[in-house]
């Protein structure tokens, strides 16, 4: 059974239940139950109409739960009025679900969890494993999130930017657990792009595809990081790159630039270079200038300094760094690299070691420690 197909039906089915009058939290539980049932039943007995099957089963689950709830509270209202289960509505509420699950009243971690469950159709257990927390904790996080948005009107227009931030977080989380979060983020962004015509949605999808294309080459078999310049470009996924570039070009042509399009443009310039030496750093600096204008993020200016160092030489890069706060993440690593390029190996080795101590993740720490060790060994010889 194609689990991705099954999960792609999740938001559509959930939207139908909510339109029929089910409250979001109860409908979401019912759809989860139906998904579990589908995984159990479909391999032996595949339905003619998978979506219709899911709507029927989840609606039944919803009514059962609502009746049990009403009986428990000795109240018997509303739930016996079952609407005629006519043909599924033509309107697709997938977009409304994205807005609801990324509602600004939610914290980032709650929005991520709710999106993966209600839009992505993942189980609580899968989400808990992906984020390395106990299942009970994730279950609470999700039910709190559902309570938080319970007063939000379903048909209220939402903000695409909040949805994109949530999807970016899912993609950037990496690859822990048995759920491939990066691939899931791409699937969800693709689905969003089908539901709304927006250049930044396209920009984010392009950005994801262009980074995903390099995935196999980003780490060595032993798990250590391989820097962009040393990656085996013959192993980059050219299909994903071609798709990313095409989506990006169509988005840029609409002349409504945003930060994800600008980031994707930088990724595309890297993907486009046959060798690291042939990278068009001058154009990359220009895109970082655009990006700094759009976001004014210090991290962007840090990355810009790296690009300046490649385009105009390490001294120019160090000059660009001088204006930045040295407490920024990766500041020491970037400074070390530029000093090494400038031939000052002693300073570079010291800064690589300092950067290693401040690295936020293990792979980066090990990589930076190796850089320091490499320079120290060369100097001692």
């Amino acid at each position: 059974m194609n689990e991705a197909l099954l999960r792609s039906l999740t938001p559509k089915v959930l939207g139908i239940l909510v339109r029929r009058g089910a409250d979001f939290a109860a409908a979401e539980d019912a759809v989860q139950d139906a998904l579990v049932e589908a995984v159990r039943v479909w391999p032996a007995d595949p339905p003619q109409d998978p979506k219709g099957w899911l709507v029927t089963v989840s609606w039944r689950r919803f009514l059962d739960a609502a009746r049990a709830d009403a009986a428990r509270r000795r109240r018997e209202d509303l739930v016996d009025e079952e609407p005629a289960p006519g043909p599924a509505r033509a309107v697709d509420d997938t977009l409304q679900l994205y807005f609801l699950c990324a509602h600004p009243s939610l914290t980032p971690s709650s929005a991520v969890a709710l999106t993966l469950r209600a839009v992505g159709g993942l189980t609580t257990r899968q989400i808990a494993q992906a984020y390395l927390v106990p299942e009970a904790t994730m279950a609470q996080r999700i039910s709190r999130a559902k309570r938080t948005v319970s007063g939000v009107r379903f048909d209220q227009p939402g903000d695409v930017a909040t949805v994109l931030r949530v999807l970016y977080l899912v993609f950037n989380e990496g690859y822990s657990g048995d759920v491939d979060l990066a691939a899931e983020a791409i699937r969800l962004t693709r689905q969003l792009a089908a539901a709304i015509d927006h250049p930044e949605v396209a920009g984010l999808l392009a950005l994801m595809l262009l980074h995903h294309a390099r995935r196999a080459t980003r780490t060595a078999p032993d798990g250590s990081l391989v820097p962009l310049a040393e990656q085996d470009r013959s192993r980059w996924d050219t299909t994903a790159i071609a798709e990313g570039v095409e989506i990006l070009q169509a988005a840029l042509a609409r002349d409504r630039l945003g930060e994800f399009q600008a980031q994707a443009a930088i990724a595309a310039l890297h993907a486009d270079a046959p060798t690291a030496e042939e990278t068009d750093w001058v154009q990359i600096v220009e895109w970082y200038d655009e990006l700094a204008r759009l976001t004014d993020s210090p991290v962007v200016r840090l990355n810009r300094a790296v690009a300046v160092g490649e385009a105009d030489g390490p001294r120019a890069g160090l000059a660009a760094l001088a204006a930045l706060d040295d407490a920024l993440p990766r500041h020491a690593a970037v400074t070390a690299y530029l000093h090494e390029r400038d031939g000052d190996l002693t300073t570079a080795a010291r800064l690589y070691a300092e950067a290693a101590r401040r690295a936020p993740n293990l792979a980066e720490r090990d990589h930076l420690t190796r850089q320091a060790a490499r320079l120290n060994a060369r100097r001692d010889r």
Partner: protein
Amino acid sequence: MAKYLLLKHYRGAPAAVNDVRMDQWTPEEISAHMQYMRDFAARLEGTGEFVDAQALAPEGTFVRYDGEGRPPVTDGPFAETKDLIAGWMVIDVDSYERAVELAGELSAAPGAGGKPIHEWLELRPFLTEPPTITE
């Protein structure tokens, strides 16, 4: 979304404000303290921020490899060890500020006289997976 370790020390942390050894408390004060810890963990489970909590025995053994074919060497416990971990809690929160807030609440657990211990807790971020997007 970041995981933090809240480390509780037997020794090695600066002295607490209400620094009275537990065996000098009344039984009721001990019960109140334990209840506070349980309630705190339960509340974090409710907010979807709880990952793990464990307590450690105060005395342990040092072990090291002693060469091919030889059994490991054991030593200790050492009474003079400066840093001694009592236990920990692992939380998964949205920000460093939230982690500090929760550590502050845990440090307010009641001790002698039913008053907050104001114990120093050590807050340590976990190293994460590398992000997908780096440049």
